[in-house]
């Protein structure tokens, strides 16, 4: 049984030879961007540099779009649905440029045998790169259809127009369906860069809030997630690992384990171990029995203390990020501050899961990884198979927000299935395994020194950021847990930072503001105390938090409005527009103090200084006797370029805002010298219903005709900053180290 979206596409799998043909379109092209660069900005690698990045390695149109004789379109994208609504938005883009009704279009996502390799679905790149590529491919197809229809309708191409119904109409009213035209046409031709796109004024699908394709199934119990997939003869596995990263577990002897009732197989390779059972509960039961054994830390204690203590004591590589020097007036005010955030868990509600099956020398892996082509690379490398013997298919999982356990569990499942050929194996991690072993969002520290002159101009901006890696995405077996555990282990690679302009720990460390003197430095810590990798917005979260907090500290010192200080130092018109639109909608200029412990705050950023612009305004009240914050109103303004699905954008921004409030006020991975001690939702609380804002509104600025800019990570930094700023406004106390937890606030505020 396949998940519902896969089901739809199978049902609509009209062309017997589609797989073959597509495979042909994908063959012979260099493997595209590997994950290591997927969090970075893509660089062109292929044919014509005029084409959008994702089209360059896959310029043939039939790699992207096929049209069947009945006039239905099938669209192939290497991007995948992560709960962000991308499947629906990409389908809209294709439907718009094909000028077809959306219900005649179906979409196939991330599948190493069927779709182009578009690298990771991450870094808010999907619309920016995937959407742009698909859009141009669809425009090419529409143009070809129109051109081929001319002789069929016995008329001149110039007079033809598409109707939006999947037909082409001649000036005299005669028309012909796409299916009939497509039957005469090969789409195995390269895309052209200069094809006209449909114009916003005549849009039929883009810019509309098409309801998400996946929601009806999800609210009625359809097979929607990989966790729901059931294959004939499927076995259930659980992997046996010590309670947390960095520890080892002593297991009983193999004979003892194999005698356990309910066990189908015990798979072991070096330090890797898994139990496999016919029934899932047996696997859980046996796993627990084995975990009752002794475990201990392998080597070296985890340093304890504040985040700054821990990070600044570790070896770092220094990277200059920005150096600007101009003569200015003399400084009259000098402020310095240190900001920090702890390690975060991705905290997916559904622990990571994968299914793998080894049959006839070929391995198939179903995974919810953000990089399905990397899943194939990793498994091929781990099992020493050639890549063409490994087929990886993306199936939705719970929201991941970055690199959680998805890639590890896929490799785990591959290893187990490889040892047990003939039957599919389903492996789901337990909640505590996800908390104990997934790569974390890195803890970070920043230090800022800023100076104002007598006219309240910022004349000095010195900024340092320390961070462990935010990108250890695997591209081969040396990036996953199983690779480190097997007998012939693959030692982990040296971690390297993502270069600017995207950056990782350095992401958004260079302020977008126009400042005459800047000295921004990144201290990259290749090996932190925990495994860390990409988590929504990477380093931008703390960098924006720090910059935007310092702007408020400066405004406060100068006695001017924080918005004014920002506008005074911002020359980008779209940045100014977002700030002003948000301020207007929120009523920033007319805000009035409503008494003690009540306040307002704002935060702004352009994600990566390349993506969406977002400005968040909050009105909060704080209860000093308990430390609880109530966000009375949250208002976000975003500019993400041309908007394909406005409700989808709002949904992402609302979600990002609430998640950021949760990071900022509650979350922190706890640990002692031996291990992470956060293992469940009681030791890693996140925001619950009682604590989400009373009101949230999102204003999406119309930017017709502008390029798409991803939006999923735009609100994290600005929201946390706006909260710290509102808190300072409400209490007069500046909190600089997250989480701004009720305990911390109560201690600081109760006696005020």
């Amino acid at each position, binding site marked *: *049984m396949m998940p519902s979206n896969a089901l739809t596409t199978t049902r609509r799998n009209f062309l017997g030879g589609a797989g073959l043909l597509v495979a042909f379109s994908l063959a012979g092209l260099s493997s595209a961007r590997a994950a290591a660069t997927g969090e970075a900005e893509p660089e062109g690698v292929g044919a014509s540099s005029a084409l959008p990045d994702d089209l360059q390695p896959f310029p043939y149109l039939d790699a992207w779009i096929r049209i069947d004789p009945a006039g239905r379109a099938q669209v192939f994208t290497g991007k995948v649905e992560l*709960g*962000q*609504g991308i499947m629906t938005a990409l389908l809209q883009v294709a439907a718009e440029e094909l000028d077809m009704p959306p219900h005649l279009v179906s979409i196939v996502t991330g599948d190493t045998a069927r779709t182009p390799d578009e690298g990771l679905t991450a870094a808010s790149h999907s619309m920016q790169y995937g959407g742009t590529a698909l859009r141009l491919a669809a425009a090419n197809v529409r143009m070809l259809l129109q051109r081929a229809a001319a002789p069929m309708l016995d008329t001149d191409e110039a007079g033809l127009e598409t109707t939006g119904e999947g037909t082409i109409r001649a000036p005299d009213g005669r028309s012909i369906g796409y299916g009939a035209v497509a039957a005469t046409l090969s789409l195995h031709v390269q895309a052209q860069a200069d094809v006209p796109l449909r114009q916003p004024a005549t849009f039929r699908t883009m810019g509309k*809030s098409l*309801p*998400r394709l*996946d*929601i*009806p*199934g*999800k*609210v*009625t*119990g*359809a*097979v*929607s*997630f990989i*966790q*729901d997939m*059931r294959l004939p003869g499927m076995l*259930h596995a659980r992997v046996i690992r010590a309670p947390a990263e960095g520890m080892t577990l002593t297991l009983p002897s193999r004979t003892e384990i194999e005698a356990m009732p309910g066990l189908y197989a015990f798979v072991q390779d070096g330090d890797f171990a898994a139990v496999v059972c016919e*029934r*899932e*509960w047996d696997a*859980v*039961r046996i796993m627990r029995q084995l975990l009752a054994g002794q475990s201990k830390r392998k080597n070296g204690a985890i340093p304890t203390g504040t985040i700054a203590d821990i990070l600044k004591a570790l070896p770092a590589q220094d990277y200059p990020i920005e150096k600007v020097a101009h003569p200015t007036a003399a400084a009259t005010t000098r402020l310095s501050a240190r900001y920090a955030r702890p390690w975060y868990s991705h*905290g*997916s*509600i*559904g*622990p990571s899961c994968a299914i793998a099956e080894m049959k006839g020398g070929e391995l198939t892996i179903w995974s919810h990884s953000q990089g399905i082509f990397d899943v194939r690379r990793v498994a091929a490398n781990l099992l020493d198979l050639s890549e063409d013997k490994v087929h990886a298919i993306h199936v*939705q*999982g*719970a*929201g991941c*927000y970055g690199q959680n356990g998805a890639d590890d569990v896929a490799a785990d499942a591959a290893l187990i299935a490889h040892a047990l050929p003939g039957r599919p194996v389903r492996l*789901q991690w*337990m*909640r505590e395994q996800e908390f104990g072993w997934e790569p974390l969002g890195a803890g970070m520290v920043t230090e800022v020194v800023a100076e104002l002159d007598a006219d309240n101009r910022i004349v000095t901006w010195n900024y340092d950021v320390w961070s462990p890696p935010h990108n250890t995405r695997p591209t081969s077996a040396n990036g996953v847990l199983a690779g480190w555990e097997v007998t012939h282990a693959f030692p982990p690679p040296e971690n390297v930072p993502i270069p600017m302009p995207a950056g990782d720990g350095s992401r958004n460390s260079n302020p977008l503001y126009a400042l005459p003197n800047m000295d921004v430095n990144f201290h990259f810590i290749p090996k932190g105390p925990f495994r860390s990798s990409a988590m929504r917005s990477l380093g931008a979260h703390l960098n924006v938090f720090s910059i935007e907090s310092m702007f408020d500290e400066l405004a406060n010192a100068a006695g001017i409005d924080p918005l004014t200080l920002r506008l005074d130092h911002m020359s980008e018109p779209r940045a100014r527009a977002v700030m002003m639109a948000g301020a207007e909608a929120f009523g920033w200029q007319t805000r009035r103090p409503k008494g003690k412990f009540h306040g307002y705050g704002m935060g702004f950023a352009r994600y990566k200084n390349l993506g969406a612009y977002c400005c968040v305004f909050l009105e909060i009240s704080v209860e000093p006797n308990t430390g609880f914050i109530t966000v009375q109103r949250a208002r976000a303004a975003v500019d993400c370029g041309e908007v394909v699905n406005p*409700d989808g954008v709002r*949904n*992402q921004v*609302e*979600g*990002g*805002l*609430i*998640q950021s409030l949760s990071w900022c006020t509650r979350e922190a991975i706890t640990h002692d010298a031996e291990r992470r001690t956060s293992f*469940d*939702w*009681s030791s890693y609380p*996140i*925001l*619950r*219903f*009682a604590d*989400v804002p009373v009101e*949230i509104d999102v204003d999406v600025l119309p930017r017709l005709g502008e390029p798409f800019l991803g939006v999923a990570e735009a609100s994290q930094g600005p929201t946390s900053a706006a909260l710290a700023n509102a808190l300072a406004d409400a209490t007069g106390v500046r909190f600089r180290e997250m989480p701004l937890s009720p305990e911390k606030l109560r201690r600081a505020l109760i006696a005020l």
Partner: protein
Amino acid sequence: MTVSLIVNGQRRTVSATPDTPLLYVLRDDLELNAAKYGCGLGQCGACTVHLDGKAVFSCLTPIGATQERQVTTLEGLGTQAQPGILQQAFIDEQAAQCGYCIAGMIMRAQSLLDRNPAPSDAEIRRHMQPNLCRCGTHHRIIRAIKRASAVLGSQNGKGDAS
């Protein structure tokens, strides 16, 4: 052990060791997908179903304790072709991001509407407290519950008038 229970109105007989949590029986034996494994610890609500009309964590409900009891899962509220009122409200509000938490959310919310068809905002928030959403869909979920409540209200209104 053989357990006989009523699932979504139908008598089902399953054979499983009595300690098996209802969650695994629903998912693996009865092939009902809605209830999800999230934590297995009663902390997230992804596995929420109704047991004798009350919202419970199916991950902590041993099948041996359900003999002859009534279980309702999300599948029991409606289908894609004919969604229940609350399910339709979730569609109308587009109340999901990844959607992994949603089955549990709807079942938790349904248990509120069953005894209080017109809950206040505060009552909704308090009632939904056991269920976690990591995507930050809370507002849409609250809106969907209110929308369903309004539909229920107007239906009752009609009922009274006739």
